[in-house]
């Protein structure tokens, strides 16, 4: 079985949070879908709340603290991401955005990313298309076509087999397919030289 790394980023703030609940369901579904394609997903969760101070510190000092650095390295080395944010003021939360603001802008290039969001009402569902998708387009991620939105109504639905379930499974299957058909992620060393000095002089 192929081994691949999935990192799940959750920007929920409360405990328990519906954002984390959605992240858990997406992660479990992705694990199952990948296994059916012969891929074992090694899953790591990153709760941005735990990194909130270090994310702000990174903005001010220009370098990440130890825990944030580990999270950034995990994201960079991941074969796929699931990102889930609560909707705050008609967009992703500031903490969610800040995490990506201090991440290397090339870290997500061609990385499969499943986008998901939670909110109190379904009226916010287009945040996925208006806010999250452009952000990850800018970061040149390979965005999974199906994104997943969950409102309070979805958690209170009569059936666990409702439309949210179907959407989670579809998105997870799309993510699994992207992971399965790709080579494992390769991390470039930021300290590696890409040219020797004679070439740098010549190619000014």
């Amino acid at each position: 079985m192929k081994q691949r790394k999935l990192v799940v980023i959750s920007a929920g703030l409360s405990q328990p949070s519906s954002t984390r609940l959605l992240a858990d369901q997406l992660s479990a579904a992705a694990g199952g879908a990948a296994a059916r394609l012969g891929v074992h997903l090694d899953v790591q969760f990153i709760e941005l709340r735990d990194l909130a101070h270090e994310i702000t510190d990174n903005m001010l000092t220009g370098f990440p603290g130890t825990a944030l650095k580990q999270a950034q390295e995990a994201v960079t080395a991941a074969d796929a991401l699931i990102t889930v944010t609560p909707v705050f003021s008609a967009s992703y939360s500031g903490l969610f955005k800040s995490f990506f603001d201090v991440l290397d802008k090339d870290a997500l290039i061609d990385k499969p990313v499943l986008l998901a969001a939670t909110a109190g009402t379904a009226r916010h569902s287009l945040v996925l298309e208006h806010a999250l998708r452009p952000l990850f387009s800018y970061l040149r991620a390979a965005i999974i076509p199906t994104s997943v939105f969950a409102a309070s109504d979805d958690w209170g639905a009569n059936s666990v087999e409702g439309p949210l379930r179907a959407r989670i499974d579809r998105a997870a299957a799309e993510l699994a397919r992207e992971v399965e058909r790709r080579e494992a992620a390769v991390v470039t060393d930021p300290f590696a030289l890409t040219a020797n000095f004679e070439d740098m002089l010549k190619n000014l």
Partner: protein
Amino acid sequence: MQFGIFSVSDITTDPTTGRTPSEAERIKDIVTIAKHAEEVGLDVFALGEHHNEPFFSSSPTTTLAYIAAQTSTLQLSTATTLITTNDPVKIAEDFAMLQHLADGRVDLMLGRGNTGPVYPWFGKDIRAGIPLAIENYSLLHKLWREHVVDWQGKFRTPLQGFTSTPRPLDEIPPFVWHGSIRSPEIAEQAAYYGDGFFANHIFWPASHTQRMVGLYRQRFEHYGHGSADQAIVGLGGQVFMRKNSQDAVKEFRPYFDNAPVYGHGPSLEDFTRETPLTVGSPQQVIDKTLGFREYVGDYQRQLFLLDHAGLPLKTVLEQLDLLGEEVVPVLRKEFASLKPAHVPDAPTHASLLAARDAKEEVPA
């Protein structure tokens, strides 16, 4: 090994009193600080270059010449000289002039400068920072070594039959350090020329500095200037000391919390854990500084940042006293006892002159 201080020349309000020194006061203070560095037995004083408020040091060679006239042993350097926005011709002239006035007690550290708005004020673009650093230095290097220069490049007007005057003292160019926080290209540049590499070492974790210095050492050897452990390495550092370490923490905390660069961010405790900053007793500074060697190897120059973030002159002079009386004598002895004989000291005008004379005396 050389020990010294470097100043970034910030004019910052003292957060404990709300008082902001005038430019005139800070400029005179920096001269007092440099002179006191020599008095307490330090080797090097290095001054930054900025072209924006709240900094005063737009003309480092003027300041350094004035200091040179009032000192006798202090090595004068920069931290850093902007190789991107300055005309390399003017750098060649200014520093050769300073060499003559200071009887050779001059070297310089080149840096790119990371203040975006400054570049267009000098007709440059920050996005071309690395190519500017590479082209400008290749011209500077030539101007100090060739009497008549014909040159054409991308970023400045061509030169035909140009001679930079005055010529370097004894025809020996000032030793050059290349400073960088995070660009492997600059470590490569330093290695290519066999120049020194200075790691900022203030804002970034030790693991980062270790990688940059490691790359420079490896490439220094690759380009045939000696073995990797013979490469010329300098480190920055930041300390605040009192006899009693708790007093140091208590006194420095408001300056740290409000510092222009990292203030209102990480706690003092986080920052001392993650970076080379040491706030404590002289013994703690000695222990932490000796530890730098464990991840960069034997190195040649250690500069501390003391006068920043609004610290008053009196406090800075007390810091210099502690450095000169209690810290540096121990560090000198300890580092010397650890350094193998084949690892050179940082080149000075005197050592470069002696090396050249020795070479010339050998019959062909």
